[in-house]
């Protein structure tokens, strides 16, 4: 029951929505489509659902040509980032809608709906109208409808993005439970997200997409440890990985005239020359023995502080694991954890990862 996309291309105007996408999805697996806004995630999901045409390319599901099957016969379920439900129907009727379309027996519909309602924790809300529910509950209804359908392909397009933080955390945990149940063994789950943390937490296969093109397709661990290029490194880290232009000369990494770091032993095999260096925000730490930087902006996020810093033309984002107050233009001393540096060649492709070369 594999879903295969081959060379999918869609370029309605000047930009590619989908640029030569060839992927294989296997039943029983969770795939996270990770990309920034307007990277082509929704376009790809809609193409699989049959809601968006393609200029060229083939979609095959279970050996059948999927392109020729209309949306309503595809047995696909989709949950949007907006909470899309049928406002004129009750919660029960919303969830039962796809089953009624299949002309299932009422007793079977009742069983399926009850089971889906139980999975998403909406017992007691069956007779409520959609307008009477909170945002999180509305999204649960949308999810329950897609679960009740028992579709072979379940597409989730940033389903948590419009929820508040706490609800997002709760539902994400529930998603993991739901996905690890019986459904996951029969279905292909494709979950689109802009949030690298969410993608890592779901711990499935990660497909990194940008400008309609697939940049990397690997396990969550592999994508995190070995991003194939600078764009993947930026997309798969929050805050985005710092990518700076520099060079290796005379056993030093030179980032600018003042920030020069001794070349770590494991980087000594790399030839002198110009490179892009990648460093996670958490690998730039406050340390009096480090380099002096100027604070451009300090953001407190939960129990962490994100510092936007510069020194001459060198700009960094640093993630401090505590809440500290900084003023703009404060001078701080920062140490760059050079042993965690990534090195990318001038084309932006990974040539050294601290994980791969441990």
């Amino acid at each position, binding site marked *: 029951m594999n879903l295969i996309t081959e060379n999918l291309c869609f370029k309605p105007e000047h930009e590619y929505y989908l640029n030569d996408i060839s992927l294989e999805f296997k039943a029983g697996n969770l795939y996270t489509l990770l990309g920034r806004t307007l990277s082509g995630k929704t376009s790809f999901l809609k193409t699989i659902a049959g809601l968006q045409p393609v200029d060229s390319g083939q979609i095959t599901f279970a050996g059948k040509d999927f392109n020729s099957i209309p949306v309503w016969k595809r047995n696909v379920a989709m949950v*949007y980032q907006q909470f899309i439900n049928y406002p004129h129907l009750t919660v029960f009727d919303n969830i039962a809608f796809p089953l009624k379309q299949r002309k299932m027996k009422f007793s079977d519909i009742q069983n399926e709906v009850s089971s889906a309602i139980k999975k998403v924790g909406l017992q007691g809300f069956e007779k409520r109208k959609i307008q009477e529910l909170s945002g999180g509950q509305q999204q649960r209804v949308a999810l329950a409808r897609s679960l009740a359908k028992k579709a072979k392909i379940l597409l989730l397009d940033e389903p948590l993005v419009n929820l508040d933080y706490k609800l997002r955390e709760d539902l994400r945990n529930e998603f993991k439970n739901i996905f690890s149940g019986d459904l996951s063994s029969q279905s292909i789950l494709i979950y689109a997200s802009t949030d690298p943390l969410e993608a890592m937490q779901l711990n499935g296969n990660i497909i990194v997409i940008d400008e309609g093109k697939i940049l990397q397709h690997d396990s969550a661990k592999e994508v995190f440890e070995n991003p194939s290029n600078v764009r993947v490194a930026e997309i798969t880290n929050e805050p985005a990985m710092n990518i700076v232009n520099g060079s290796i000369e005379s056993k030093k990494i030179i980032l600018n005239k003042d920030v020069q770091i001794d070349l770590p032993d494991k980087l000594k095999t790399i030839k002198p020359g110009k490179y892009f260096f990648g460093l996670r925000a958490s690998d730039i730490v406050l340390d009096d023995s480090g380099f002096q930087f100027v604070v451009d902006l300090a953001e407190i996020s939960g129990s962490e502080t994100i510092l936007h810093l510069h020194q001459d033309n060198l700009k960094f984002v640093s993630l401090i694991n505590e809440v500290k107050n900084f003023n703009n233009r404060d001078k701080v001393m920062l140490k760059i954890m050079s042993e965690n540096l990534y090195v990318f060649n001038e084309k932006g492709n990974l040539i050294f990862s601290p994980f791969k070369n441990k």
Partner: protein
Amino acid sequence: MFVIAPFLWALSTSFKDFNSVTGGAKYIPWLQFEPSLEGWSVLIRSQGKGGVNIIEPYFNSVFVTCSASLLSIIFGTLAAYALSRFTFKAGFIKNNDITFFFISQRIMPPIVLSIPFFLMLGFLGLLDSLLGLILVYMVLLMPIAVWIMVDFFNRVPKEIDETALIDGCNPFEAFFKVVLPNSIPGLIVAGLFCIIFGWIDFFFAFILTFTKVQLLPVAIVALNSSVTPWWSLSASALVSVAPLIIVAFIVERYLSKGNLSGALK
């Protein structure tokens, strides 16, 4: 005051007779003038007995207005849905141009349309007929329906249609089972406007009918003679406006009922 006063004036005048109307400003029955049913009885007396029968024109108006409004809403809603959801392109003509074409029928002064309508209905043998009036009124009312419904459908999230398709509806089922039930407020507003504009039209009812068919506005004007019968004109004005008020009151309850707040939060 500006809404109620004309009604009260018409109501008061409808119970007056010639002497009460011409004898200065009088408004309160029994105190200032003796009420008379003359103005009302003229409307139901046969012409032989000095009356002007408005019952037949009344039902003609009801039939023409309801039929034209219903057809306009049906076709207008389908056209509006297509214009809202699908992209049309024929040379330089796109969706907005088509919508403007519909609305342009209302922009032109009626006199511009009257001669073509007269010639066309004459060619089809539909002058002085209810069917001819229904067709003409459809041309006048459908732009209103299209205009209101395009705007309404544009505000219904496209994702609702898509979800219905994903849930197993073909495009027609998606429209009838999901989009239309969620568009009831828009349908009611469009229907109300169609009924109002159809009901109050005098110009085409006057130009395109002669002897066989008469609509209410024309019958009311026909009441006028060398001495203006303010009492029967007032009575007929109240009779004419009554259905619109009743429809508005019935519809108002449903307008606030349906909304799309749960479709896309």
